[in-house]
Every structure is written in structure tokens, then in C-alpha cells.
């Protein structure tokens, strides 16, 4: 092929070198492209197709700080829409505007109180809507590029396509967030994003990868309890098919998702053989007040005036936090305590004595020797 070009051109060597370089480069790239044929062959096309599956929702609200609009995604060809559960839906006059400008009155089928998701239905006659198939939702990795599609700030109206923001996935981590001082009720993993995606009106929007595949649903505005800053995040879509089925079936859903469950018979300081100082302040530092001789705590080397700072790497700032953390652990669980003693951090691993021993103790206490 190169020879042909050479013959054709009969040009000088420098020109040939140019040709060859270009041509080899493009050949290599073409091969590469073929291998990744689906990879955003045309980002514009991908965005356009994804936008067609995102709808604008108008309902209650309208006061300052309470926008009367949000976003939703079509999840069936027959008019099911997944969106955020919010005050916006709290009206009989709920309007959904499709990407092509068609307008529908929506019916609320049901909701998930913990995930704060709701399913709406549009009474479309033909089964021809473009939609995201929740069964085909994909997972993404940290650092992977994503697109957030939503009607944030209500920029798009009528037949205008929703806004697209691009960024990467910052982290996949449990949602530890609050609205005002109230903790969010969904605490499982979410995708945290490096793009300011969760602004007013964005909730219920789509997070897709650069191939247009659904990755997540944009959440409502929340502040991180870790950083105190506004979070940009999306609920992973991979689990939502079941959730939507449950919502549509009218099943009663969990009020809180991802909450740790209390132990049946929980671990206590007493069972390990130490006592904390009396809990008298709003945040009493969890100092050890006394250690029972020959107890697991004593044998491990805990001492009076040791300050507990971590229980299994979870920071413990107060006596209350300590008791809460122990409340999640079973009686006989191995637990590691991080202690501050004279400025040095020490690690201790403890396990309560055999259940038998404690029963004996109690028996003795009850009947006397």
C-alpha cells in the first residue's frame, strides 16, 4: 500500500516520511477503534440518545429554595418513570415533559422512603418510548468518566434536551450524609462524583457512562457528615430493578437502608472487664475508669486513664459513641481497641471470656457462696 502511494506520488523522501507516518498512525488507530467499536464512537450521539430517556418533571413547590421541578428517567417503553421522592410529587397536577416536548399528566405508583425514589406512570398508548433498562445498568470504577444528565436549575424547557455535565467517579462509599441535622435514611454505597451534579432540580436525573449505559440515579441535595460540604452523588442503578418491582407491587419497603443492626446479645465494657468514667458531659471522652484484675482487659494490658480513640478503626469521641459501637457487636466478638496513653497510640485485641464463666459469676452472685 505504501509502495502504491510512493509510486503514485513520486515525491521526495521527506514527503514520503510524512505520508507513511500518518498512514501507519491511522491504521493503528483504526484497528484500535474497531476493537472498541462501541466506545463512544460518537459522544454526541451517546448524549443525544441518553437525553431522550430523561424527562422534566413539574409539580408542587415554587417558593425560594423549593423549586417546583425535578428530573426523572424513563424505565419502560410504556411510560414508567423513576424519579426522586420529594415535595415536588406532592400534587395532583404532576406534569412530565418528554425530551421531544410531549407533555403528560403523571400518576404516582409508589415510592421507596429510604432511597427517596418514586415511580410514576404516564398513560402512553404506544409502547415506543426510549428508556433505560434497569436490568442492563452497569457498575463503574473510581476514576471512570461519567455523564450526569438532569434538568438542574430548570434550564431546559419544552422540547429542549436536559443539561449534560461530565466528570469522573470520585469514590464509591457508604452514604454518610444529612439534610439539615437529620441523617439520610439510605446509608449503603453510592457513587460520589467530582462534578457538581446535585443542584436544585437535578434529583432523579441519570448518571451514565460514556457509552450511554445507565450507572446511577442522581440523588437529592445532601451534605456529607464527613466533610460538611454538599455532596455530589448518585444511587447505583444496578440494584434498582428489584426496588422498582417492589414499589410497583406495593410492597412495604425498609425505612432505612444500610443501617447496622444491633447485636442480639451485645458486647459490653463490663464483659471485657473494664469500666468507663461516668458519662456526665454531652461528649464525655471515653477514658477507662477502672480495670477488673485478671479480666480480659487486664490481661491484654488496659489501664486506668487510657483513652479509647478507636473501636475497630471507627473513631470514638464519647462514652455514648463507645456504647453504641459495642451495641453492634456480639458478646463474643473479637474487638480491637486503639488507646491513647501518654501521647502514644496502642492497639489491643480483646475477647470476652467464655459465656460459661459469666453465667457462673452471675450464679454465684445470686446464690452466694
Amino acid at each position, binding site marked *: 500500500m505504501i509502495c502504491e502511494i510512493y509510486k503514485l506520488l513520486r515525491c521526495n523522501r521527506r514527503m514520503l516520511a510524512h505520508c507513511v507516518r500518518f498512514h501507519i498512525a491511522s491504521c493503528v*488507530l483504526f484497528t484500535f477503534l474497531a476493537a472498541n467499536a462501541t466506545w463512544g464512537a460518537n459522544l454526541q450521539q451517546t448524549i443525544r440518545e441518553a437525553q431522550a430517556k430523561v424527562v422534566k418533571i413539574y409539580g408542587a413547590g415554587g417558593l425560594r429554595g423549593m423549586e417546583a421541578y425535578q428530573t426523572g428517567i424513563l424505565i419502560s417503553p410504556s411510560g414508567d418513570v423513576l424519579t426522586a421522592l420529594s415535595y415536588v410529587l406532592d400534587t395532583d397536577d404532576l406534569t412530565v415533559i418528554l425530551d421531544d416536548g410531549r407533555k403528560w399528566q403523571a400518576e404516582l405508583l409508589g415510592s421507596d422512603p429510604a432511597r427517596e425514589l418514586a415511580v410514576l406512570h404516564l398513560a402512553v398508548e404506544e409502547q415506543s418510548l426510549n428508556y433505560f433498562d434497569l436490568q442492563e445498568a452497569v457498575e463503574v470504577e473510581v476514576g471512570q468518566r461519567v455523564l450526569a444528565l438532569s434538568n438542574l436549575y430548570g434550564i431546559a424547557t419544552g422540547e429542549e434536551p436536559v443539561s449534560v455535565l461530565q466528570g*469522573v467517579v470520585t469514590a464509591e*462509599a457508604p452514604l454518610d450524609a444529612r439534610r439539615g441535622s437529620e441523617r439520610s435514611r439510605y446509608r449503603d454505597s453510592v457513587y460520589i462524583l*467530582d462534578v457538581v451534579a446535585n443542584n436544585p432540580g437535578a434529583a432523579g436525573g441519570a448518571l451514565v457512562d460514556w457509552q450511554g449505559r445507565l450507572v446511577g440515579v442522581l440523588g437529592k441535595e445532601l451534605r456529607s457528615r*464527613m*466533610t460538611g460540604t454538599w455532596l455530589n452523588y448518585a444511587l447505583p442503578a444496578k440494584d434498582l430493578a428489584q426496588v422498582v418491582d417492589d414499589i410497583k407491587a406495593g410492597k412495604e419497603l425498609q425505612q432505612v437502608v444500610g443501617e447496622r443492626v444491633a447485636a442480639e446479645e451485645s458486647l459490653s465494657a463490663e464483659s471485657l472487664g473494664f469500666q468507663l468514667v461516668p458519662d456526665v458531659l454531652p461528649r464525655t471522652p471515653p477514658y477507662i475508669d477502672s480495670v477488673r484484675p485478671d479480666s480480659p482487659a487486664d490481661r491484654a494490658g488496659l489501664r486506668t486513664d487510657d483513652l479509647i480513640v478507636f473501636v475497630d478503626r471507627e473513631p470514638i469521641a464519647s462514652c455514648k459513641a463507645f456504647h453504641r459501637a459495642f451495641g453492634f457487636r456480639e458478646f463474643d466478638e473479637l474487638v480491637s481497641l486503639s488507646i491513647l496513653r501518654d501521647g502514644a497510640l496502642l492497639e489491643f485485641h480483646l475477647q470476652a471470656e467464655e459465656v460459661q464463666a459469666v453465667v457462673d459469676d452471675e450464679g454465684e452472685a445470686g446464690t452466694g457462696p
Partner: protein
Amino acid sequence: MRFRVVFFLIIALGCFSIANAERADLGLLEEQAFQAAVERAATSVVQIRTVGGLDRVGKTVIAQGPTTGLIISADGYIVSSAFNFAQQPTSILVQTPSGKQVPAKLVARDKNRMLVLLKVDSDVPLTVPETVPTGEIHVGQWAIALGRTFQADRVGVSVGIVSALNRMFGRVIQTDASVSVANYGGPLIDLHGRVLGVLVPMAPQQSAGGEQNELAGTEFYDSGIGFAVPLEHVLGVLQRWRQGEDLLPGKLGVGLKQGNAHLQSPRITSVWPGSPAATAGWQPGDVIVAVDGHAVGTQAQLRFQVKPLYAGDRVAVRIRRGEQEIESQITLAGELGAYRHAFLGLLPMRDASRGEEKGVTVRSVWPDSPAAKAGVRSGDVLKKIGETEVHSLGDAFEAMESFQPNSTAKFVVRREKRKISRTVKLGALPEEILLREFLPRAFHVEDSQPTDQHPAELVPLKLPEFSAEVWFLSAFDEKDRRAGLLLWLAEQGSEEAQQLADAWQTIRRRDGVTLLIAHPQSEAGFSADDLEYLETLLRTARQRMRIDPRRSAVAGRGKAGQLAFALALRRKNKIGGVISIDAPLPRALKLPANLPGNRLAVLVIESPGSSFAPLIHKNIEQLREAGYPTSWLQLPAAVHEDTELDGLARESIARWFDGLDKL
């Protein structure tokens, strides 16, 4: 020719296919590059947890989550953002990449670039990241911000570009990657996983809480404006930093002419006593022309040369004095002694009389002042201070900035047809409150409406966005006359506002004081949350009325008094006085340095049996030590409400207020 056409055609085709292919997989290749870079640098990024310390710094609640640090030496030195330690934790714990939790020691802070240096003991050598030479960093290159807040076992990633170099007067590079608490202290890396810099919040202008405030700049989080201190710089100072001494911003010890920093030349208006500038023999009027061989034509250019430097750094500074140029070797200072304003001993007339030539007419001479000793009289017209011609009151205040208490100054007054020149030793701003006999009227022009109305006609002032009630009582009916402003923070309702207004009715007209009465936003009374609203209020008042900033004071009792302190110390350029009744300084407030340009006088009022008395007395000492003239007024009886101040106390406040524009 034909060959040529074909050739171009093929080139064009080649280009086209490349463009197409690039568009197709560049995204994927970039994404793979991001992930590879992150992986390379991640082993040097540690998670930091702190234990103990404050819950709040100022009005900001400190989140208790983990923060990020960057390993910079194999033997355990870690750099992080000062923000992460603003709460002054009692213990610091670092989770090393191996997953081990180890205690860390805070070795020292860098108060110029808002970093901290930590040290951990590690039995294994830690992974030190590769550094990008600062000279190689260029705008537009990929930049990835890493943090370890959300998860301990994986770094958080945000991708952007380098948006600017040499920001914040040459101290940081800027990126549009998302930078927030989630990655302060973490690295900004390039596409090869090499570290460009350490992420920090930084305020673009001199922030309200002072430049050395750890929280300054946090409001720009995730905004597309993030900053990183080049790692090369950090490694450059490590040798010095690890000795354990805080790195402080280097200071020359000069005051410059106020105005637009990009237009004004660096002309010295004042020289701090004992400062490097004083040691070098610099004088007011000298102009800085070069620093280390770099010519500086404006104050902004001077800042670019000096701001990156630390206390202890040596620089060669060239100044111009008249025709002469002098070069001095300067060792920059960290802390300067308190600045004190000089005092001549005059009270000025506040308006020009008709047909008067330019100058400042003496309203009254302060008893026993340098001016009194030099024989100045009321009605004399001040024409010159030092080498500065005085045309207006503003000129006179500016001229005084070049002097210190105890320095010698020449001044010229005109008395009738005669010019009188005197040389005096200047004093410090007096703290006593003048008797009424030394305070004649300060205005030539008479009022159009000399009688007062009862009750006083309070006018409501509406502030957009804020719900709190605000009232004002104008000093003059004429809009063009410049009035003083007394902002009274009143805890109780509108009834009290009316009583206050009635009580101040006569004083405000006689002394030309507009009374502004502000109520708290919340029923619980004033709190630090009201600062923003009060600043907006001051701004609005200044837009609506002609106000003399030197004669603007803010007053309050108890919690409102603490807020008055906070507001006045934060906005010294707009407020000349603060009146606190039974109120100590806010606990979390760091007393800012007294500066030549902005004068602030304090009036501390104490009622008998105040439980804060010991604290208040300590505050008076602190304020005086920092260079703020602080007057003290003891009330005869306890006050429980602002309206209970008797006529005598109010008159004393008025006399103190009337002396705010003394020279």
C-alpha cells in the same frame, strides 16, 4: 500539480481518520491514564484522623471526618493542609498505606502557605512520590486531585486541568478539579502519577478572618477554583521546616499608600518601629523600586516578590529617595511589634466654611497635647504635616500615618494672614474622654430644622434577603452632609428602638450622628450568625447615606457587644469605633494587628457587679497592647437593658464618639 493535489488529499484523509479515531478512543486512553496515574500516587496518600479539639472554629462547624495527607519522606514526614488541624486536635493518627494506624506529631506549620508538617514513626520506609519540577508545570495539562476521606482503602479522585500558575502572589498553582475538605492535604498529580502540589484552601483577597486563618478560602470548595502548593517548594523548605519552627510570612514592616494595588506605586507611608524596614533606615516617602533585582512598579508587583517569602529570608531591596537609589539587604521579620497611631492633638471641623482656602480648620485643641503645647488655637487652618500639603481631612489622616508616637513632626498652620510653622514630638492617641467644653460644634453650616420632634421619627430600613428589623434616625435632613454612624445592636424589640431613638434624638443632631438600630435575626438574640447580615446592613447604609467611616461605631451590650467587637475588628476599614457594654472579647477571636490605614478606637463600658469584670479588664490590656486606644467607662448602676443607660452615660459615649476624628 496533479501529484500535489493527490498528496494533499491523502494527507487530509489521514488527518480526518486520525481526528475521528482520536475522538473515539482518546476518551478511553485518557481514562486509563487517569487510573494508572492515580494508582502510582495513591501509595503516598494517607488518611488522617484527629481526636479532640474544638467543634467549631469561629462560626464554622468542623466536620469530624477523616482528612488527607501526603508522604514526603521515607522516614515519615507527611505534609497536609492547615485546614485539617484548625480545631487544634489533641491527637493525630495517620493510617499508613500498609493499613497500620500510627500516632503523628505535628512538627510545624507553614502560615504563609497554610500547610502543616507531620511526623510518624514507621518501621518500613514509606513511599515517596515523584515530584514535578515547578518549571515544567503548564496551564492546560491534566491535573488529578486525590484525597482519602471517603474511604481509607481507596483514594478519592477528581480530574481537571492546571488552570493557572503563580496564583495568590506566586504561592500556588490553580486547578479546576474539585478541591474540598475531601482532599485538602492530598496531592494534585499529573498524568504520570507525579505530584504537582499539595491541595489547600486559600482566600483570593485578604479575607475577613485574616490571611492566616486556616478556614480562609474553604467557601470556594468544588467551585472549579482549587489551589495547590507546588511540592517542589515544600521539599525546598523541608530541611528548615523539620527543625520544628513555624514558617511565617516574611514582613518588611512598611505601610504603603492606600488605593488600587495595581496602580499605586509602592511608596512607603509608614515604617514600623523596630521592623526590618526601620533597621534599614527607610523613611516615609521612600519608594521601593526593586526586590532581588526584579523591578517593581506597583504594589501588586511588590507583593508578587515578597508574599512568597518567609520570615528569616534575606532579600535585596532597592528604594528610591528623591534622586538617590539605595539598596539594602533585608532579613524579613515574622512578627512586627504593635503599630500605634500618632497624635498631634487637633479636632477638625467636618465641613469647609464658605470661601475658605484649602486646609483643615481646627475645631478645638486637645488639652495637654503636642498641638496645645505648640500653641495651636481653634480656628487655625492646618496646611502641612511633615512634607505633605494638607488640602482635606483625608490628606491630614494620611500624612499622620508616616509618623509614630514620639517621632518628631513639623507642621504648618495659617492663622489669619500668618503662616506658623512648628516642630513637635508627637504623642499616642489619647484614651480619656474629653469634657464638653473642648467640643464645640463641628460644622460651619447651620441646620435647616433646629428643633427635635418627639417621639423621634424612626425610619425602617429594608434589607433584601434578611428578615431582621432595622431602623434609622438620620443626623441631617440634607442628604449631602457627611454624618457619623452609630450602629446599635439592640437585643429587644421595636419598642426599645423607639426609646433608644428618643434618648439619642438631641445628640444625633448636635454631633451629626445617624443612629442605626439593628435587631437580631433570631429571637434567641445576637450570635456569630448575624455577622453577614450586619455587614450587609453596613454596606447598605453606606450606599444610602453619606457616612464618615472614621466616625462610624458599632455598639452593643452582652452578646451584642461581643458581636460588635467581632464586626468592628473585621471591618476596621469601615468602622472607626466600637462600644461594648459588659461584654468581653469573643472567645474564639484572634485579635488582628492594628494597622496604619485603619484606626479603631474602643470604648469599654462596665456596670458595677458585671460578672465579666476580670475578663473585661484583661481584654482592655490586650487591646491596648495590640495598639488600639481603649477608653474605659464605669457606670454608676447596673444596666439590664440598653435603654437604661442614663443621660450622663449617654453623654459620655457621645463625647467619646465626638473625638473619633481627632488628629
